[in-house]
């Protein structure tokens, strides 16, 4: 997958703007710098884009010095997949059965976390509208390394049944580094478990390198993201 991506990076046309007549989108009001009065009367300036976000870009995480230790890390990572509880699309409904006794994913070391900071697996559960893509990128970037992305359902692969929709992206790998895809519309809980199992194997083999790929080709991903998110009003990296 990595080679394939690298190949496509080389063929990328310059310039993020493909549609000519873009209107200038003003930055949202709440993101503008403003004066704020504290409870004790003191006043200070808040610049949301500067103050609330980190300016540095993502970094590549290098493997541990020795193979044995790296293998141990990978084993540990594989056995604790913590999924971000962000249902981006309809596929999220099959998560519920997994969280509950019938399919019980917890016995395989899989659980759901409410915040990106605690999660290392982002399941993109289906199509992403542009509006959600924006939130998905931010959520993904807030997750800690090492982190993985699984594309769930055919719409993450090639647009699925929304292939002609004006509001959904067609191929997820243009915008986020995807480690694994599970096809189906939507995939059953058993298929998800199979996917998680395959992901574990990938992680154990040290092949789930999506996050590093994202860091290495950060500019390419950003260019793709900005091409579809016309009102980019957030910092480039939301760590």
């Amino acid at each position, binding site marked *: 997958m990595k080679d394939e991506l690298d190949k496509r990076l080389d063929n990328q046309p310059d310039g993020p703007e493909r549609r000519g007549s873009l209107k200038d989108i003003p930055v949202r009001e709440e993101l503008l710098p403003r004066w704020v009065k504290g409870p004790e009367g003191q006043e200070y300036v808040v610049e949301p884009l500067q103050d609330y976000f980190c300016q540095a870009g993502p970094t590549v995480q290098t493997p541990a010095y020795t193979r044995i230790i790296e293998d141990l890390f990978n084993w540990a990572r594989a056995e604790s997949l913590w999924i971000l509880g962000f249902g981006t699309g309809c596929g999220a409904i099959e998560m519920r059965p997994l969280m509950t*006794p019938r399919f019980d994913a917890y016995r395989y070391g899989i659980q759901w976390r409410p915040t990106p900071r605690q999660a290392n697996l982002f399941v993109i559960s289906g199509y992403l509208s542009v509006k959600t893509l924006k939130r998905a990128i931010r959520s993904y970037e807030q997750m800690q390394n090492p982190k993985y992305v699984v594309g769930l359902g055919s719409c993450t692969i090639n647009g699925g*049944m929304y292939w002609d929709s004006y509001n959904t992206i067609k191929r997820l790998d243009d915008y986020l580094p995807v480690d694994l895809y599970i096809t189906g519309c939507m995939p059953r809980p058993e298929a998800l478990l199979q996917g998680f199992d395959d992901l574990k194997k990938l992680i154990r083999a040290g092949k789930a390198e999506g996050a590093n790929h994202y860091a290495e080709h950060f500019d390419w991903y950003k260019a793709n993201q900005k091409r579809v998110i016309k009102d980019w009003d957030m910092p480039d990296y939301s760590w």
Partner: protein
Amino acid sequence: MAEYPDRSQYPAHLPDGSCDIDLSSGKYLKLWQGPNHPGITGNMSVELTVCGDEVVEGRTHVGYLHRGFEKLMERRTFIQCFPIVCRICVPEPDFNEYCYAAAVEELAGVEVPEKANWIRTLILEMGRVNSYLMYLGGQAGAFGQGVIGQWTTYARDLMLDRFEELTGARIYHMFILPGGVRDDLPEGFDQRMEETLREIESTLADVHDTMFRNAVFKKRAMGLGRVDPAWVDEYGVTGPVARAAGVAKDVRSDQPYLVYRELDLEPVIAHESDAYARADVRRRDLLMSVDLIRQVLARMPRKGPVMATLPNVLHWKIPRGETYVRGECSRGEYGYYLVTDGSGYPRRVNVRGPSYTHAMALLEKLIVNVNISDVAGLLVSLHTYPPEIER
């Protein structure tokens, strides 16, 4: 310790009725609940302006799941629309299939076989059971009761197994298509359904004990989000939300469709009109659905076709016309407004989902003065589902 102003004075109301919220005053805080938030049903967000821990203003933001169904359908033939409509509502997709099929049948003049109508009713009631079970888990979860969701999701999964053997799919059944339904009931379906229904009833009895007779739940849900019966018309409130306010609004009895005329049903109502009453209405409605499924299976004809003869669907043209078809889904009135122009494609499809009014105008009205911790509970108690709003 600094002197904090008495927050009950805020926000001040402007002459036009809106609130005077000056963020820079430091008295208010903006808080976004969603789009990725465990207490949100589906993918939407509520922009809360809070003063202390009380909400002074709430704004619903939707569009995270917008795929443009209504536009996509305009460039699909009538049969090609059939697989796509169910995607509008994940927990209860069958209403889309039914309403769309019924609208197409009406405009095209297709007569649906009797037995297909019974099977459609069966599927819609099965879907309602599913939707309510999911709701109960969510409602309890929003008030911190994790175990209810564990039970109801299991019960719902049993119903999904019945769906799977009947329709060939778990979530998106794609079984009700214009002209009828795809297939007959499988061998031995009745018996397995009866076992499932018993399991669901026993789950519900447990839910009744642990949730509805639970001091915590009662304390938090009673009095929360009271809907004035007068708002029912003003805000287009339908379904259990209206019924909990004492308005016996139920399309199944108001304007019976499919075979509801031949079934015994009585709209479930309550009068307290708060989150608790709504949950209770839904619980009782669920029990009625279980009963309706039994009635359907007992009374439905066992012989005959399940599908009308259609013209060749590849170039099926429908004469110019417009219609509106509605049904009572678990959240309220679901309807399809279909306009045709004589071509092979719908001219316009408009999907009217109950959440459209509940999650927007009604929620924004109810959310004022609610404690932050109760926002999720309030939201769930309206049983909203965002794709119905944005489609």
